[in-house]
């Protein structure tokens, strides 16, 4: 009899303890991200959709050296380089990237391209909404990746 009473008592104590924990947690602030109603909170280093940068004059930083394409473990970067001429200057270097495609159906967002780039032309942005019904739309062209020029007066609302 005493044994059973002890057992019942212990069960009640552990139950009370457990419910105490759930009750405490009821009073804590929720940690849920309210995406898509609110923007997602990324850390500064988050590796999202790439951004191709420009220098202060608005010239493209990419000099078409193919180092990002060579470093990429997923082979998702396709580049065609062309020579700059005095009449038509795209980048500060000798060459520029005439075609710069990133295939986001292959990209694994590892950051090797950013590490490899000798001119800091490519970095990861914070964009991530890549979902699409058309897989061909996942091949982003240079125009989609480039920083806009002249830079917009104020940042767009969703960035």
């Amino acid at each position, binding site marked *: 009899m005493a044994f059973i009473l002890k057992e019942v008592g*212990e*069960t009640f104590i*552990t*139950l009370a*303890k*457990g419910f*105490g*924990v*759930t009750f*405490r*947690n009821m009073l804590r602030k929720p*940690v849920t991200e309210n995406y898509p109603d609110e923007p997602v909170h*990324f*850390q*500064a*280093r*988050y*590796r999202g959709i790439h951004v191709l940068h420009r220098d202060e004059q608005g010239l493209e930083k990419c000099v078409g*050296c*193919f*180092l990002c394409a*060579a*470093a990429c*473990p*997923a082979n998702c970067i396709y580049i065609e380089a062309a020579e700059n001429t005095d009449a038509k200057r795209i980048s500060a270097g000798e060459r520029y990237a005439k075609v710069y495609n990133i295939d986001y159906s292959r990209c*694994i*967002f*590892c*950051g*090797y391209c950013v*590490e*490899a780039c*000798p001119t800091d032309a490519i970095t*990861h942005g914070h964009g991530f909404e890549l979902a699409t019904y058309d897989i061909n739309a996942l091949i982003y062209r240079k125009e989609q990746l480039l920083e806009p020029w002249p830079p917009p007066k104020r940042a767009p609302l969703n960035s």
Partner: protein
Amino acid sequence: MATTVNTITGTQTMVLNMGPQHPSTHGVLRVVLELDGETVLKARTEIGYLHTGIEKSCEAKTYSQAITLTDRLDYLAPLSNNLCYCLAVEKLLGLEVPKRAQYIRVLLTELTRIGSHLVWLGTHAIDLGAMSVFLYCFREREEILKILEMVSGQRMMTSYFRIGGLALEPPPGWLAAVERFVGMFPSRIQEYEDLLTKNRIWLARTQGVGKLDAEDAIALGVSGPTLRGSGVGYDVRKFFPYSSYDEFEFEVPTRTEGDCYARYLVRLAELRESLRIIRQAMAKIPAEGPIRSEAPGIVPPDREKMKTEMEALIYHFKIFTEGFSPPPGEVYQAIESPRGELGFYVASDGSPKPWRVKVRAPSFVNLQALPKFVEGRLIADVVACIGTIDIVLGEVDR
């Protein structure tokens, strides 16, 4: 389902497929159970549904590119895989990593261990019917993922370690984030304990279930908490220290009961030990110092150097276009991953790509113990037993 009549006893047995879609098989594991009523007579595990050919893919990548593949083996502890692979290649090259990088590596892998154990505890508990533990565990894991995102840029596929050190200098303020986590977490472990350790349902579902004695455990090659729950105190961190683990003070928690409950207690104790290691590492990490070893032609030079010095720029180009060629030879490097002894066997033929990369995946080996756990027990115990091994199918199938 198939029914066969046992010719000796005249009773009927049934073959039942559990998985690969069953939620409690933690991915795509299929267990073929031969049942007599609800009792399991025989269990056979069918694996390979998540075969991705990572080992083979490594042969087509340069040594540093292959790091990104290792993330995807045990996707709950990507940094452990990164670390093991990097250590293996560093051994092949005879490369010494700066102390600062070693301590940061230790800190981050211990954080991953906590994160991985939290997923294990959450899913194991939800399998056995304790919903709230699952939610609480994932909430705390989120904090770890935030730290990983802060440091490396990605929550899960971190690829943060590089051959010869780290990819990037950790951002300012990261140690404060770790500090916050370390301050908050002990009370959370206590909450899990309050919910489970003495809970009668939890005890009934785990105590005496999935028994494995030390002799069988060793014979099956089981490692990690699954082995330590059977009373064998084997931990690679203690026996074959790597990445300066010999400078840290920690216990190897073991239990002798060898059942699911013992393994649960071992893992909970490991959470506390990991916290202890993290605290020591925080004190040890020097504020400044190199994060990559000096090895021209193997480890990329600092960005500042690369932009100012011609020689560094040439090395930078060479490393990213061709990679580097270790001397021909083969190495095996093991570490203690959250699941057990994770080993990378890397063979080089002197070219910039590994000739062979073989992974000794702890989940794969530990899964062998499943028939031992479940034979003679009820179907409901199979769920508990799969949970207690803590398998990650990405690693089992590779």
